Each structure stands twice: as structure tokens, then as C-alpha cells.
């Protein structure tokens, strides 16, 4: 079972987020890390391979520093990594990202399974997995909280607000997993040492045969016109319960048109 896990390097949510002059996210001057939601996909892939055989390849599309996200996945136990990096990719939207990822996955080989996280923790659009599946012509099983691979099929459970769906697809397939699926492992110091020797390939758009005009800010279907910092939260209203707390609460909710 060969698995490709698509991961993203995102700005550390603990740091301040800044933007470039072209209103794209500043990724060069902020601390970044492997998107925490992608750790679940890496863990899911490692569990499958450890229970059987095969190898886990992690792939990312991003600037030079995105190699840190790959390194973390390799330290967790992935076998090899592919870094697609090209200045022309700067400002790409989900459509272009899925194109680049699809070509990268094809070039890696024909994996039995492509795994992704639920969404990135910076863009949080959740659309790349579906777009990628379409481009690769694979069945898509998205947002599952369980995952089972056996006899050429993949099964998973998608928990919705009202119902839980049991999904099944034939392999090869694309699966995106939620943060409920497992508890991602930490790298170990042994993993850190081992990762130093694992192969990391860096590919450009030319290596993938993707035309630079199809990606980047100019090709994006959506553009950020402007942005503003979220206003600081205002202090809430404190109601002291003098036996009439319930009434006051109901009045407050009614005033806000919640009830």
C-alpha cells in the first residue's frame, strides 16, 4: 500500500499574521509549521503502513520554508518527501493548488491512497481534497473520522450534524480525515535522526509540466481586495444573579433576538 499525504506549511497560529503588499498571506517573515490538521492525515497513513507494508510519501506545495512541514512529517515516520516550489506559484488559489498537487501525485507514481487533512488551518476552505480527487479521477471519501483499508476498498465514517454516513470506495481513492480520527504521534529523537537520511525531492512547475500561466495570483479565481484586523472583543455584560438571573438572561437573549 503506497500512500501519498498532501500537507501544508501554515503560519503559526500563535504568532501575529501579516500580509504582503499584494494582499496574500505573508509566509516568508512569520514562523510556520506543519498544519496541525495535516498531522492527522500523516498519522493515519503511518498507521496503515505500519499494520501492513508500503511507504508513505508526503508532498507539499509552498515556499522554501515549507520544507519544515515535510521535515516534521518525515520525523514522525513518513518515508520520503516531495517539495513543489516555484516562485510562479505565489498567490495561487485552491484551483491552482489542486492542479499542481495533482501533477505532483501523478509524478510520484500511482498511489493506492491519497490522504489529506480536513482543511488547512490558515485558508480553512476544505475544497482542495475534492478538487484533487476530480483532477486525479479518484473516488473521494471526505471528512471521515474513521478509516479502514482492506481488500481493495477503503471505508470510513463521516459524522454530520444530523447523521453519520458510512462511506466505502474502491482503491485507489482520495480520503480526507478529521481531527477525530486519531491522536497524532510526536516525532521522537530517533525519528529526528532518521529523517536526516530520508530523501526529499524538490520539483519546479517545469518538472511537473505545468504552465506558469495556470497558477499564481494572476490566474486566481478570487482575489483579496482589502483586509482589516478584527476589532478587539468588547467586554461582556455581567449580570449578578439576585434570584432573577433566569429572567435577566431571557431578557438579554430576547433583546439580541436569539429567543
Amino acid at each position, binding site marked *: 500500500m503506497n500512500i501519498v499525504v498532501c500537507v501544508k506549511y501554515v503560519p503559526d*497560529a*500563535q504568532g501575529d499574521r501579516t500580509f504582503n503588499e499584494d494582499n496574500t498571506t505573508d509566509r516568508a517573515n512569520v514562523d510556520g509549521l506543519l498544519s*496541525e*490538521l495535516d498531522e492527522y492525515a500523516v498519522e493515519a497513513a503511518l498507521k496503515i503502513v505500519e499494520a501492513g507494508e508500503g511507504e508513505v510519501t508526503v508532498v507539499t506545495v509552498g515556499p522554501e520554508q515549507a520544507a519544515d512541514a515535510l*521535515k516534521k512529517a518525515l*520525523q514522525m515516520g513518513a518515508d520520503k518527501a516531495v517539495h513543489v516550489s516555484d516562485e510562479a506559484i505565489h498567490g495561487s488559489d485552491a484551483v491552482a493548488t489542486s492542479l499542481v498537487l495533482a501533477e505532483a501525485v501523478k509524478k510520484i507514481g500511482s498511489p493506492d491512497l491519497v490522504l489529506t487533512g480536513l482543511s488547512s488551518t490558515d485558508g480553512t476552505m476544505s475544497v482542495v481534497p475534492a478538487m484533487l480527487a476530480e483532477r486525479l479521477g479518484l473516488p473521494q471519501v471526505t471528512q471521515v473520522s474513521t478509516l479502514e483499508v482492506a481488500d481493495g476498498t477503503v471505508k470510513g465514517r463521516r459524522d454530520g450534524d444530523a447523521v453519520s454516513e458510512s462511506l466505502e470506495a474502491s482503491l485507489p481513492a482520495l480520503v480526507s480525515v478529521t*481531527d477525530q480520527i486519531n491522536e497524532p504521534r*510526536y*516525532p*521522537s*529523537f*530517533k525519528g*529526528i*535522526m532518521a529523517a*536526516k537520511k530520508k530523501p526529499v525531492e524538490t520539483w519546479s512547475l517545469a518538472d511537473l509540466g505545468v504552465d506558469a500561466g495556470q497558477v499564481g495570483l494572476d490566474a486566481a479565481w478570487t482575489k483579496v481586495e482589502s483586509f482589516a484586523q478584527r476589532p478587539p472583543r468588547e467586554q461582556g455584560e455581567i449580570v449578578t444573579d439576585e434570584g432573577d438571573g433566569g429572567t435577566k438572561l431571557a431578557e438579554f437573549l430576547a433583546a439580541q433576538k436569539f429567543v
Partner: protein
Amino acid sequence: MTEATSAAVTLVAMPVQRLMPTPESADLIELTRDLARRELAPRVDAAEKAAEMPRDVYLTLGEAGLLSLPYPEEYGGGGQPYEVYLQVIEEIAHAWMSVAVGTSVHSLSCYALATVGSETQRKELLPDMLSGRLLGAYGLSEPDAGSDVSAISTRARRSEDGSSYTVRGRKAWISNAGYADFYTTFVRTGDDPTRGLSCLLIPADTDGLSFGAPERKMGLASDPVREVVLDDAVVDAGRLIGEEGEGMKIALAALDSGRLGIAAAATGLAQSALDVAIAYAKERRQFGRAIADNQGLAFLLADMEAAVSSGRTAYLYAARLRDAGRPFTREAAVAKLAATDAAMKVTTDAVQVLGGAGYTQDFPVERMMRDAKVTQIFEGTNQIQRLVISRQLLK
């Protein structure tokens, strides 16, 4: 996203820049910070208030390879220099002092076996000890033998066929007691005050080994300290580490290294208190401005920073001497003295910066101040450190 992650976002990130000797040791610091942020910081407050020993944390640290860093790779260790190991201890202490002390004690308890144990003993025991599956404790002190190691009276008598020792006595102030799986214990096998000591690695489930009541300490509540009572405990002779009579030598050699562990932990604790003080001073407003805008207070913070940095510099210098195979006894004592006195001063000043808030248990600095006091006492009181330093100067 897990609850722990979101809870940790409000905590102060470790701000220290580190010049690590290798890329993998830099990654190791990143891993330690990740573990500290996600596994230690969210739990420290509740666990310390409830005096809970977080045994599972040591398993997590062990799986990550953090309990075995200074030991050889062939026995499952990380093969890292002390310069690296100690900075990891400092990072752990920044999040949770009790765990840093427990880790340092565990590492110390592996020292005898790793350095003078036989090949058979190392192969049998060391991998499980270094992985944290087995937790260690260190039994040197006794009710009447603390700084004076030669006063040890716990007696180990060899059986007639030489196959075992019968051990009788009490070991005092034992960290990890009741939770540890083995006790690296110094016992008297001969009458000579110093040459009559030996080292036994006693399994926790040995008949005749029991514990006193937990000590009711000022701080380090999550570090369980009890007496270990050896009431004719029969220990297999295969658990003798080194030769009979080598105990004093083993104990003293380990002490220098153990002192560096405490110096590093005290530095992390002091850094943590400083970080809280800085954040509070920038936020707290009086007379229409942040209290940090008063130079009197800003200079207090500057002195705290100088004290923390001095402690760090001292332990790193001693560690580098050790890593280079040079003598480092004097420098280790200097580091222990400087870093722990700095921790006491900085945590006390942090309480001062936070004022009334600092004196309450709603903020962590009062706990840090209580935790700091013991660092001036254990692994050799700071008076003993002065004795070691002055003897080295005047010999």
C-alpha cells in the same frame, strides 16, 4: 483542534534563543517545546495543586527519547552531549519544574549503571530504563547522612554463598519514591567510611522495601518525595553496580552531573517566572500607563534577565567542559550555585512585579517561588557548593 492546544495558546512561548551544536539538536529543542506546550503546560497548574505525580508524562517523554539523551545510542540512548541534554531539561522546567526535576533524577539514577555497570547488566536493564518504561529513583541521602556521604549507615550484608545482599536501613528525601521501578541505592558493605560504600540497583518490588509517608513539602508538589525503608530487603548480587567499595566514587562522579541538571532546571524555572513578569508588567496599567513604563520596574526586569542569563551561561560552560572530557567539578558547583540563587531571586522578584496578584494562587509565580527554594538545598546545599568551589580554588 484538541482542547489542550487551544488552552495552551494563552501561555507565554519560550523566548530563549539557543545556539545548538547540530541541526538535529535544534530540532530536538523544537520537539521539546512542542511537548512542553501541548503536554506539560496545560496540566501543570491542576496537577501541582492536587499534588499529582504525572507518571504518564514520563512515558510520553520517554517515547520521544527525552529521558535517554546523554546515554549511548547502542543502549537506546540519544548519544547527545550534556550541552544539549541540559538545554532540554531547561525547556521542560520552563513548563513544569517538577517534571524537569523528576527527569533529572531519573537520568541520575541511570548514571551508575550506564557508566560502571557490566555489559550484561546494561543490556538487560538499560534499554527499559532509558525509554522511561522503567522510572528510576536515587537513594543516597539518609536521615543522618546528607551532605556527609561517608555517614551512610544503610547496611548490605552479602549472603554466605555470595548470591545476594540483605539490606537494612532508611534512605531519605527520595524523589519519585513510590512511583519508581528501581532505586539506585548507596549502601555500606564495609566499615571504612568512604571505601566501604557500594551501589545496588534495587527493584521496586523487592520484599522488605517500603515507603514512608509523603513529605509535606513547600513546593514541587508533583515530585513525590518519601523515605525508602529497607527492612532486610534481599537483593540479588547481580544488582551490584561496579565493584564493592566503589560506591563513593560512583556517587561523587554522578553528583557533578546531577548538579548541572538542577542548574539547568533552575534556569528554566527562573526564565518562566521572568516571562510571566514581563507579560504582566506590559499589561497591568496604573496611573494611566503600563507599570513596565516605570524605570524602577523595568530595571528590576533587567536584573532578572541578567540573573537568568548568568545561570544559563554558567551551566553551559560547565557542560561544554564535561563534553570535552575536561574536569568540571568546580564549574558544576559554580553553575549550581549561580543558577539556583538566580532562580530564588528571580521568582521572588516576579512575585513582587505581579504585586497582590503574584501572591495569589491564581497566578503561577507564587508556585515558582516555592519551587525555587529547594533548588538551593538539594543536590548539595549552596553552602556545600561554596565548600566545593573554595576547596578547588585553594587545593
